[in-house]
């Protein structure tokens, strides 16, 4: 049988190119299937009682009134869980976290008890009937006081703990860096704070747990970015046999790292299903999501740069105080307690670098790695890009010129940084020059000079970032002992249609399209004929999931390589069909033909039918056309980009208007430029949000003041300009298709561009630095010389 495929066009690429997203028709029509859409027979609803205080001893809990309510099936406290050995669970950083508080509460809104009831309203109403007596303990709120000898110890649960210390960490060479600083012409110093923020995905976290008491099977529909990793952790925590656990992540409404950790609510739902023998649903409300689940950032960074008076950067040094909240719940490879903050040397060729860091506990929600941060590269890039502008101001040098003078040169790649990271490939200067050209940089500077004459405030901010994504090589990187490799399985059906099964999981990034295109590019089957299956541990190979921009660098490589493996087998079958040797065949995307005689060819669809059909196959070849692999990346990939932001500041009200934003990204080989552009747009909006309005803040008693979207502000179309995007392409040398990943580039790269632009606008007021979020009030205070840290 011969099938004829229509020729590829620009609208219908067979492989890479712009292509409408395959998942969008169902999502746009409201036909998605999210966790909260799951309805099971006899399903009960769980609601969690949370602490009103940030730090308090639990004196007593009276649950009798709640238990007596009609429709309430169970009320469970920490003490009840302790009876089953389930009151505490491990975090992804080898700390422990309370599932339900037993001894004391350690942050406001911490989980204290849960109610299971026949509907969600009754469950919520019953929480009001649980009477908890608390005894106040002074909270540790200001991270700068956490190590003071007189403050209360938060983690009294840890044996022998006498302070609020989590870890010390360092990287680079302290002595060599000191030597460079000692002899430098110019040294600049600045405290730079990246305040606590939150990813605030549109869909909050939740799950439906269905534990069958007879078979012992646990089916868990869950908002998870990492279904396989979660399955293994549940097996380790709850002692459930792993083959009896099926984790299903259906459609996920945004993750941004918020859905990597395992939260107490998931464990509560599983325990409830186990105790009651019925399916149990738990879904957070908006407040619960904002105030208890994985926050992001919260680094207080002392930055220093040593340079020559001509503007050659010699060394970068930083000392960081990291607020980890009440439990160390950081989701990062275990050997990297500070994530990939070690890339704080940025995109510059320097002589020495050193970072020291102290992480501490405070009475705040746990988390720390989230919000598209690429394991703390947001903080690293913000630090270095802010500091380069501080240096430019000190030297009275144009900030673009200073960057151009110091960027790593094309011929220096692969480039090993002074903190040991090997940047795989890069060509930085053309990216920055392209952004400057798109912006009309020189003209903008002229306009700014004229406006300054008239007292108008216009700012131009640059940022050049290097990302490190695609964790990671299993020799270095694991989460709780699980290597960060990813599997992929491809089956070609007899009629030439295909199904590819991934270990990663989209939360909106477009995997169902991108991965179909990767397979299509390698084997010539149109993307619409390739089904992408993901998010179900029973139906996909093992792997660590989607976060840290790792899907394309790791799973994308796996998809390309598994397809090549299938294609190799197809070539052998084709050689039999065409009665020539394998070496005499050439591949034209979608078919094999005999070298020198293109009329003699077979399509991949013909081969698929042959592989499953009647008749002999070449000797030693089994029937079928499928393969599975597990890809272990050789190195991270290092996307980069050059961003320019133009702002206008109203001198009377201090309101900041982002007038233009130019973003040139290089993520290596582009699979679907439309999806890349969408990812960049989203990240740029994140950056504007963080730079200008977002912060999770607390009062002095540790009350979280950002518990709703009325207080925690997300930018709208009115705060974001028409994005001007461009790209360069520098493929990764070690990735099979040269792709690098782009999911977090813009979130990482954009905040410093916005802040640099605002600080640049305020130069006539003598402002050298101002911390995010740059709300009108904070900008005005900076103009008055009253800038205060956002702590």
């Amino acid at each position, binding site marked *: 049988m011969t099938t004829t495929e229509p020729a590829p066009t620009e609208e219908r690429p067979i492989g890479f190119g712009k292509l409408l997203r395959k998942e969008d028709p169902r999502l746009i029509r409201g036909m998605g299937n999210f966790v*909260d859409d799951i309805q099971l027979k006899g399903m009960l609803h769980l609601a969690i009682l949370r602490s009103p205080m940030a730090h308090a001893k639990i004196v007593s809990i009276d649950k009798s009134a709640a238990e007596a309510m009609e429709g309430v099936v169970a009320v469970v406290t920490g003490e009840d869980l302790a009876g089953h050995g389930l009151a505490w669970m491990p975090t992804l950083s080898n700390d422990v976290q309370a599932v339900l508080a037993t001894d004391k509460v350690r942050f406001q809104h911490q989980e204290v008890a849960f109610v299971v009831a026949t509907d*969600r*309203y009754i469950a*919520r*109403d019953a929480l*009001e009937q649980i009477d908890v007596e608390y005894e106040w303990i002074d909270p540790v709120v200001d991270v700068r006081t956490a190590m003071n000898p007189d403050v209360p110890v938060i983690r009294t649960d840890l044996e022998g703990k006498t302070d609020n210390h989590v870890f010390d960490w360092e990287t680079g060479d302290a002595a060599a860096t000191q030597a460079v600083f000692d002899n430098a012409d110019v040294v600049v110093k600045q405290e730079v704070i990246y305040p606590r923020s939150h990813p605030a995905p549109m869909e909050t976290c939740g799950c439906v747990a269905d534990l069958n008491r007879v078979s012992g099977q646990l089916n868990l529909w869950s908002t998870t970015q990492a279904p396989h990793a979660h399955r293994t952790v549940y097996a380790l925590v709850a002692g459930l046999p792993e083959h009896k656990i099926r984790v299903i992540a259906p459609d996920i409404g945004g993750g941004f790292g918020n859905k990597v950790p395992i939260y107490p609510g998931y464990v509560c739902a599983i325990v409830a299903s186990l105790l009651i023998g019925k399916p149990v649903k738990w*879904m957070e*409300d*908006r*407040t619960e999501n904002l105030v208890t689940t994985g926050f992001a950032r919260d680094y207080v960074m002392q930055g220093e740069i040593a340079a020559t008076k001509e503007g050659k950067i010699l060394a970068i040094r930083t000392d960081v105080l990291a607020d980890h909240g009440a439990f160390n719940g950081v989701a990062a490879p275990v050997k990297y307690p500070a994530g990939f903050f070690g890339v704080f040397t940025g995109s510059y060729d320097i002589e020495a670098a050193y970072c020291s860091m102290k992480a501490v506990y405070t009475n705040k929600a746990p988390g720390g790695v989230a919000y598209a941060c690429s394991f703390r590269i947001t903080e690293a890039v913000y630090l270095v890009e802010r500091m380069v502008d501080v240096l430019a101001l000190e030297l009275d040098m144009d900030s673009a010129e200073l960057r151009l003078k110091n960027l790593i040169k094309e011929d220096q790649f692969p480039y090993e940084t002074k903190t040991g990271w090997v940047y795989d490939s890069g060509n930085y200067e053309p990216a920055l020059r392209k952004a400057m050209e798109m912006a009309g940089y020189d003209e903008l500077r002229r306009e700014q000079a004229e406006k300054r004459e008239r007292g108008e405030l216009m700012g131009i901010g640059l940022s050049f970032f290097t990302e490190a994504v695609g964790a990671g090589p299993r020799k270095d990187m694991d989460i709780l002992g699980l290597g960060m490799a990813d599997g992929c399985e491809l089956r070609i059906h007899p009629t030439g249609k295909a199904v590819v099964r991934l270990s990663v999981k989209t939360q909106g990034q477009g995997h169902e399209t991108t991965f179909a295109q990767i397979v299509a590019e390698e084997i010539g089957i149109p993307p619409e004929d390739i089904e992408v299956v993901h998010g179900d541990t029973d139906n996909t190979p093992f792997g660590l999931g989607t976060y840290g921009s790792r899907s394309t660098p790791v799973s994308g490589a796996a998809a390309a390589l598994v397809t090549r493996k299938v294609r190799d087998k197809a070539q052998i079958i084709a050689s039999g069909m065409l009665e020539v040797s394998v070496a005499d065949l050439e591949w034209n995307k979608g078919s094999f033909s005999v070298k020198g005689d293109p009329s003699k060819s077979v399509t991949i669809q013909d081969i698929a039918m042959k592989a499953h059909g009647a008749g002999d196959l070449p000797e030693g070849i089994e029937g079928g056309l499928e393969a599975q692999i597990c890809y272990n990346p050789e190195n991270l990939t290092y996307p980069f980009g050059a961003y320019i932001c133009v702002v206008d500041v109203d001198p*009377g*009200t*201090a*309101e900041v208007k982002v007038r233009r934003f130019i973003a040139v990204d290089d993520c290596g080989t582009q699979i679907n430029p439309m999806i890349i552009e969408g990812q960049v747009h989203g990240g740029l909006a994140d950056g504007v949000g963080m730079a*200008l*309005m977002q*912060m999770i*803040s607390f009062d002095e008693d540790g009350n979280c*003041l*950002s518990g*709703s979207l*009325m*207080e925690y*502000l997300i*930018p*709208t179309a*009115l*705060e974001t300009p028409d994005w001007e995007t461009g790209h360069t392409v520098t493929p990764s040398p070690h990735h099979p298709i040269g792709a690098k990943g782009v999911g977090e580039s813009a979130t990482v790269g954009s905040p410093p561009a916005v802040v640099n632009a605002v600080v640049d606008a305020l130069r006539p007021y003598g402002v050298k630095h101002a911390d995010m979020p740059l*709300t*009108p*009030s904070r900008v*005005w*205070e900076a103009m*008055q010389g*009253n800038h205060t840290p956002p702590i």
Partner: protein
Amino acid sequence: MQVPAPFEYERATSVEQAIALRAKLGDEARFIAGGHSLLPMMKLRLANPEHLIDINDLEELFYIKEEAGEIRIGAMSRHRDLLDSELLYQHFPIFRDAEKLIADPVVRNRGTIGGSLCQADPAEDLSAVCATLGATCVIKSETGERVVDMKEFHVGPYETAVGDAEMLTEIRIPTASNGGSAYEKVERRAGDWAVVSSGASVWMDGDTITAGRVGLAAVGDNTTQLDGVAELLAGKTASEELYTQAGELAAASCSPQTDNRGTEAYKRHLAMELTRRSLRRAVARAQGQEA
């Protein structure tokens, strides 16, 4: 999903019936108009009314009309209606200024002027708008109706002259020629509550302000109309110096507090700056210099 505590629900079919229901159910009952303040408070369980009386069917309260030398606005007029009304804009452009910046289209499609004035949130805009225009409010009860000015109506944050068995039904604004009005607001983000807002209305004779009023929102109690500023403006020639003087007086007449929206010092600065701007624009409009 955030869920409110249990409550009973009634749907009123006339103003009389709504007031009768309210009189019967007492202070545990609340009218619900657009619901964009009350429902979020109920979901957060900051408000737990036992009964809601839905007045969205009271079509008799949906109107904006000119009558007896006044613009009369039915209490159920939506923000969207106030924003779109050419009649209102022609007489009082301050409404369109303010409405453009109240929340977002979704809220404006439902929220009402009556709901806003009765909620009396300290950061709410329409109380200052109505106060600067010298509006009066019609309050009905089972026994009749009374008409009060804004000073009497707006008692303080979350507190108005409307009693438990009463309903605000209409807002009346006297029309006069040679007037101009404007509203200025700073918010952290579109749709956020005001950091500070300032509204100004002036009536002019040539370059002279025969009467003028300024009101502020989000800067503490009793700022919806500033008597001192009105006294300052009366009979003065419009000038930048006068706007600055008025602005400084406005800043001195309010009591803002430091919070996540801004510091006290910044809010006082904005009270000054925004009052200058709203007055400048109101005068320009009165003089036909700006649409």
